[in-house]
């Protein structure tokens, strides 16, 4: 008992909110800078490379669509890891991380959905089909919204975080479904050609801009996530100080 509590206190020492804030304010400008740089290179590459002989110019949509789709899944994974942090170590920063990631995840999922639709119209001739990949991403989007709503519905932050964490973890079953839906059901959608065990099966001509854009989007995600976490910590600090002030005022009367 005493040993675990010691470990927890050390762990939380390493990452207590105040330290986190100091660290974040040092990292964020650098991260933002690198993100911008990556976007410039990535955008340049994605418009200067050749079109595909089959898909023509529309292949350029890939450079936004695929990173957004990857991020929508990665974001959920990060939320799940945070959820474990909340439930197992009861670490307050994990609460904050999961809460801050949800809107970002929703945004990237929306991006994947819309760019996918925009790609689908010229390629498949329709904006939307109810195939397994597309629907499971749509479900992911709904789950993000549901989790945001759930977290908002409770006004005690730590309880809200714990309850939401449980559903985040249970909902994680959706991620493998998205990832492997193309293998399990034959669908219109492409099967994996970059993230596969036997190495990417894609022309380097497309791979390079794709990878750079993926890196750019990932960095953007981390920048925004850090900023949102910082905002959330501030928000809680403000709430706690307001309460303090109210108590002190009522004491002095």
């Amino acid at each position: 008992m005493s040993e675990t509590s010691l470990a927890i206190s050390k762990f939380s020492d390493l990452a207590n909110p105040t330290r986190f804030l100091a660290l974040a304010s040092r990292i964020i400008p650098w991260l933002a800078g690198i993100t911008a740089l990556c976007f410039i290179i990535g955008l340049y590459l994605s418009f200067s490379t050749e079109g595909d002989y089959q898909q023509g110019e529309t292949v350029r949509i890939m450079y936004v669509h695929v990173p957004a789709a990857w991020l929508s899944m990665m974001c959920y994974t990060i939320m799940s890891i945070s959820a474990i942090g909340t439930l197992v170590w009861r670490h307050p920063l994990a609460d904050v991380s999961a809460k801050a990631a949800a809107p970002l995840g929703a945004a990237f999922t929306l991006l994947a959905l819309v760019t996918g639709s925009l790609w689908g119209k010229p390629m498949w001739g329709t904006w939307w089909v109810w195939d397994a990949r597309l629907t499971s991403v749509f479900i992911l989007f709904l789950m993000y919204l549901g989790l945001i709503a759930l977290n908002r519905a409770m006004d005690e932050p730590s309880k809200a975080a714990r309850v939401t964490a449980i559903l985040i973890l249970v909902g994680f079953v959706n991620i493998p479904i998205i990832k492997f839906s193309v293998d399990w059901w034959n669908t219109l959608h492409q099967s994996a050609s970059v993230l596969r065990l036997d190495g990417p099966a894609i022309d380097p001509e497309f791979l390079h801009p794709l990878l750079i854009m993926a890196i750019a989007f990932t960095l953007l995600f981390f920048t925004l996530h850090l900023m949102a976490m910082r905002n959330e910590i501030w928000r809680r600090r403000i709430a706690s100080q307001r309460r303090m002030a109210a108590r002190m005022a009522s004491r002095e009367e």
Partner: protein
Amino acid sequence: MTALFLRDLRLSIRAGGGALIGILFFLTVVAVIPFGVGPDLALLSRIGPAIVWIGALLAALLGLDRLFQAERDDGSLDLMLMQETPLVLTVFIKCAAHWTATSLPLVIASPLLGLFMNMNETAIGATMLTLFVGSPAITFIGAVGAAVAIALPRGGLLVSVLILPLTIPVLIFGVSASYAAVVGPAPFLPPFLILIALTLFFAVIGPAAAALALRNTAD
């Protein structure tokens, strides 16, 4: 009375997001359907109006049974029964608030679902219109059930036997009006007018019956 309307609305919204949740729920239901029937767009657009109506029915039923039960459990119902304001009016307002909080968002969201189900503009418009006109009837019918449920402590069975069959005509005329608007050959107006008549009928009968049941429950 506005106070009651606002309170009930606020209570449903407190669940977090309120109207948005209703829409989200509806979206989820509709997103689940293709997994069952398969991705065949032609089929989907054909069963579209029926699915939208069933979704609306489900959304209205979820939570409807607690309409008066919650008031009874915390004692508020006692105070409502004691008032000079006619009980029918109170029931009517509660129904209106329930409809506004759960069914109205669905009506508003239904075009979006129509798009997902690959319905064309006419079908979407017709479904939205019939839903708007017909869904209050479901709430009013449900209110009778909710009132009877608290009148008979063990009346759960009776409620469902009474209520769900009554909603079937509403559903049938709603769905067939939507179809009439799209595929013909049957005209749109007759079922639509019947739907309106049903709603008006239940708007009178529902609260009156519910009020009667509530008066007789009190114990």
